[in-house]
């Protein structure tokens, strides 16, 4: 009964603290919307059909048409087809209007056809014993296809783009060779009725995400941002919670409560319970934004899969760790300024090394090693596991135990510090 009244008191105090409510609920809502919008566009620039490519088509023949068709079919490039001089095309890249420029020289198609035909003719002649035409000797030069890159393009991305274009060109070359072979064979066997050449690849690559139950949820910015900013908001609880404890201590309420039988412990338990409920409300609020609001802004909806109870358990574990941290900050700090500054800095450090801002998989090796010391990283890894890999409790229990141990350490430390101060 005492605990219920204590929770009710905390609820009343919290509901009338407009600034505290803004920190607890408004800040994470703004963060999730802003950060997801920003990061989603960043993801799109490298993952989806938005790499801006300028194609200067001086060929206007079968090769250039095929090349452009294949580039568009790859869903990786956004083509702008034009005819410009080399210098003008270069200027367009310099101005940052395009990331890549492809300059296809005049008569490329014609040269490709001629060279393919020549190679095939030489090859077939060598079978008939004609040694005057050596297939390994090329009489013509290779056709220069100019690629221009914006200097800001990272090497890894440049390599990816170059490989993609090379693959497309190889395919066009192969098709040209096969076509030449087809034509030459018809010259040798004019009565033959050959079957059309299939363009289908002999070896195909099958991609699948390593997730349980054969569910393949493609990770996107939403699946990073929703859990990341949920955790950030949860740990920011430490500031209003610490302020609440300091206020109670400074205005003498804590003194009065400590003179009552068992009351101080009950009041602290009331705070823990109330702020734990707040953290769960934050979780559901941000989850709802991920599912219902973000799609309205043109961002993919959050797929929460079929593991809502497990997600709640992760949120509860992260929440209790955050509340434990807040309790420790509130106990050790003597002023609101100390608590706000120390609490905010610690949360930012936890977030930075934990992968909230920059996912750990793109961090340098050394930072990856450090990230395992952040409670936000334990929570984030657990959320990733459930959202993306459809993991079970068995897969994430170690991370959850870490969060509970963190909570136990912070709470015991707060209690020991309180006892130490009492006996000073």
């Amino acid at each position, binding site marked *: 009964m005492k605990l219920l*009244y*204590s929770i*009710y008191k905390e609820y*009343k105090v919290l509901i009338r603290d407009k600034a505290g409510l803004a920190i607890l609920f408004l800040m994470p809502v703004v963060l999730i919307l802003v950060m997801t919008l920003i990061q989603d566009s960043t993801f799109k620039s490298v993952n989806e059909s938005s790499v801006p490519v300028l194609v200067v088509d001086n060929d206007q023949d079968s090769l250039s048409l095929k090349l452009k068709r294949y580039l568009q079919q790859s869903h990786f490039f956004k083509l702008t087809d034009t005819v410009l001089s080399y210098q003008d095309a270069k200027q367009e890249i310099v101005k940052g209007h395009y990331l890549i420029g492809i300059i296809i020289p005049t008569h490329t198609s014609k040269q490709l056809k001629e060279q393919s035909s020549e190679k095939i003719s030489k090859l077939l002649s060598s079978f008939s014993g004609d040694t005057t035409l050596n297939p390994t000797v090329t009489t013509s030069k290779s056709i220069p296809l100019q690629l221009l890159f914006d200097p800001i393009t990272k090497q890894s991305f440049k390599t990816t783009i170059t490989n993609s274009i090379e693959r497309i060109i190889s395919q066009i070359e192969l098709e040209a060779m096969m076509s030449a072979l087809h034509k030459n064979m018809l010259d040798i066997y004019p009565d033959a009725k050959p079957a059309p050449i299939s363009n289908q690849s002999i070896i195909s690559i099958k991609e699948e995400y390593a997730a349980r139950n054969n569910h393949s949820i493609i990770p996107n910015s939403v699946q990073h941002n929703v859990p990341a900013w949920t955790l950030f908001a949860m740990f920011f609880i430490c500031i209003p919670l610490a302020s609440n404890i300091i206020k109670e201590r400074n*205005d003498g309420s804590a*003194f009065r409560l400590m003179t009552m*039988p068992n009351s101080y412990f009950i009041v602290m338990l009331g705070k823990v319970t109330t702020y734990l409920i707040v953290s769960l409300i934050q979780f559901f609020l941000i989850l709802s934004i991920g599912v219902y609001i973000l799609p309205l802004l043109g961002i993919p909806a959050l797929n929460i899969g079929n593991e809502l109870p497990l997600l709640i358990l992760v949120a509860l574990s992260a929440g209790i760790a955050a509340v434990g941290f807040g309790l420790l900050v509130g106990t050790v700090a003597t002023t609101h300024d100390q608590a706000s500054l120390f609490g905010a800095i610690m949360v930012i450090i936890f977030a930075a090394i934990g992968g909230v801002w920059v996912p750990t998989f793109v961090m340098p090796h050394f930072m990856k090693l450090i990230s395992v010391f952040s409670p936000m990283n334990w929570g984030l890894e657990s959320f990733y596991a459930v959202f993306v890999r459809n993991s079970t409790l068995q897969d994430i229990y170690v991370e959850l135990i870490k969060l509970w141990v963190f909570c136990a350490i912070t709470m015991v430390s707060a209690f020991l510090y309180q006892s130490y101060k009492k006996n000073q």
Partner: protein
Amino acid sequence: MSALVEIQHVTKTYKNALKPSIDNLSFQINTGTIFGLLGPNGAGKTTLISMLCGLFPPNSGQITINGFTHQTNSKACKQIIGVVPQEIALYPTLTAWENLIFLGNMYGLNRSVLIERIKTYLHIFGLEENAHQKISTFSGGMKRRVNLIAGILHQPQLLILDEPTVGVDIQSKNAIITQLKTLNKENGTTILYTSHHLDEAEDFCSHIAIIDEGKLITQGHTQDLIKTHQCQNIEDVYLKITGNKFRD
């Protein structure tokens, strides 16, 4: 009269302090008395009250409250005590009613008894109409009166008052002192009172102890102390034995 509080050879020295805050202090507070604990700043009053409330133990000596000590039965000791701190120890964003309901519940009072008592005290202290207003909107006197109600809701045997009338107007001060006297007379509540208002202490307290630098300087019936020290009032006694030196 039997002793409700016995303080026996109590010493308390804070860590890194050069001298003890309470130095081998011994006296007793009898049941039913209004006991004034007086002394200059830094005399050790707050330290003694904190130990009486069980916030920390003495380095040596013993404090017994109705036969219990905080070390052996803290819960029983705390149930006997009611505290009215010098600060307004209330939640400013809660109403007077919400504050009293919460604090009464923390003492484990039955809901119907608690509601009846809150109504009675709010009526006595003229706060009935303000019951559902936030404490932050109250005047200093109103806050002091609610602060006092919070300390007497569970009808403690020993009421500890740390400067209960500081910063209040004459009307509020009068209401507080009158109600405390009634509480003492009708319920037999023992009161331990500290203040720097020596005229108020002389009028209010049946017994007075003056401490300085953690030591007991004098104690006894209020009027006996005035006679013994051949003074006009308690203020003269106080100045005579503690001197005129600044203590801050």
